[in-house]
């Protein structure tokens, strides 16, 4: 069961990006590239060779596989089946999960610096600045979940509340989920913070780091970010969803919620403009305050 859910998660990851893009196409009145576009792109890219910058070292050559491997490890560690997950995911802490995602980020950063392009350096500088603001929010949200669930392992944090506790604490859960949704948008370089469609513009972050990445390396990077999208959305989904008795229903509910989050993200991207770069830290500080507010509400009741 655990193996099956991990395989299902890794296979479904590109689909959710497709759902977001299709939602955006719907709002823009376009036909859209289809739900399975990223699968086709990955299949095309993986067969290609990887031309690399002339002066780049082994760091650039190894970075994308390592980045993908760390995100994949995070996917294996993730408690897809809640309390019925494998012992590996039951003992993993929440910090491990987020630092595995962070390791993926570090190697993408190193590769973009190794390529020696000023543009990529700018992108990585911004990526680091944003993640600096994100880390406190993530840990405040984890703190709220620890307070709420009593355990410190990722599985117990995300086991979901019983129906009574869930209705009692709906407001703090909603506040924490709102704060984590901001983390989700920024972590995955979505619209209010970064625009995944602005190739070669001065405002972009994630795409700027991948300018010299091509072929199979690019396939790794694209798939890695799709998986990260799915993982962070699943974290958010498990924060919101109440406890389920059956792990199959739970898994289906999580994937359904991830699809819903993908649609919401598409709607947010269609209706919002990207924040001015200097305004983004203010929005992230606001999210940190909202996350702390969740703790207050939970403590005060």
């Amino acid at each position, binding site marked *: 069961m655990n193996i099956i859910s991990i395989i299902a998660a890794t296979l479904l990851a590109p689909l959710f990006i497709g759902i977001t893009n299709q939602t955006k196409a719907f709002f823009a009145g376009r036909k859209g590239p289809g739900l399975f576009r990223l699968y086709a792109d990955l299949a095309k890219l993986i067969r290609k060779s990887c031309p690399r910058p002339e002066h780049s070292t082994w760091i650039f050559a190894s970075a994308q596989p390592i980045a993908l491997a760390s995100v994949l490890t995070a996917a294996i560690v993730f408690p897809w089946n809640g309390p019925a997950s494998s012992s590996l995911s039951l003992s993993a802490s929440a910090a491990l999960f987020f630092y595995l995602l962070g390791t993926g980020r570090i190697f993408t950063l190193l590769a973009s610096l190794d390529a020696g392009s000023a543009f990529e350096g700018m992108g990585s500088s911004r990526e680091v600045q944003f993640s600096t603001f994100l880390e406190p929010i993530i840990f405040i949200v984890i703190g709220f979940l620890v307070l709420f669930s009593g355990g410190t392992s990722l599985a117990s944090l995300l086991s979901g509340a019983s129906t009574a506790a869930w209705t009692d604490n709906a*407001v703090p859960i909603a506040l924490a989920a709102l704060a984590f949704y901001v983390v989700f948008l920024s972590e995955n370089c979505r619209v209010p913070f970064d625009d995944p469609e602005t190739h070669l513009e001065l405002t972009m972050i994630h795409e700027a780091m991948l300018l010299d990445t091509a072929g199979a390396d690019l396939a790794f990077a694209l798939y890695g970010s799709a998986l990260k999208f799915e993982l962070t959305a699943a974290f958010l989904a498990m924060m919101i969803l109440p406890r389920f008795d059956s792990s199959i229903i739970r898994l289906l509910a999580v994937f359904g919620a991830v699809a819903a989050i993908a649609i919401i993200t598409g709607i947010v991207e269609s209706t919002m403009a990207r924040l001015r770069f200097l305004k983004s830290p*203010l929005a992230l500080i606001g999210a940190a*305050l*909202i996350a702390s*507010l969740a703790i*207050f509400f939970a403590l*005060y009741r």
Partner: protein
Amino acid sequence: MLTFSEIILALFLLANLALAGSGRLTHAIRLVAAQGIAVGALPLLLWDWQSAGIPECRLFIIAAVNALVKGVAMPMLLGYAVRKINTKRELEPIISFTLSRLIVFAMIIGSFAIAARLHIHETVASELAVPVAFTTMGTGLLLIAARKKAVTQVLGFLVLENGISVFGSGLLIEHGIIVELGILLDIFALAFILGITIFQIKRTFSSTDTDKLNNLGDTHLMHPQRHHHRTHA
């Protein structure tokens, strides 16, 4: 149990945080309007429908008038003022937006700490109402003290007033309809006078920066031709 009042009060706190960090005047007016409607609805949401039955007619009237004056009339008046004087945003606040937000957050912490020591659990309708009321009053004072534009200061006054209303309805203080309407008339008259003042400041200084009022004096008169009509002491 989850109650509507809890959601409304949580939204109140979020609106306070947003108000402290928003420089766009129309945006801030919309937030205050939302707060006003919530203030109107709050007494009805805090009413114990199951045991106390259907409340008296005047509770509905007070709720409706509150929501109309604070949520519709006043924001429309201020929106009109903003359009008329063509001021779109608060450009140089005395305390920066990020710092204001952190101050409001500190106020939230302080209000929760104070409210926990007040021991008013017996009389209070919702435990959250008291800290939320304190925070809202504090946010109003912050907007009055830390902003330069007259419109934002009027908004601060309205937020302060909203905080007092939340405190009143949270403690189930009944004033009676005459007192409530009197308070509303007070606010309305004040907002009206402040609205006129904003126009006057704008006409005299071609800006709504209240800092410029500090320079008022005979030597700094903007219209020298008026000088002749003045009698010097």
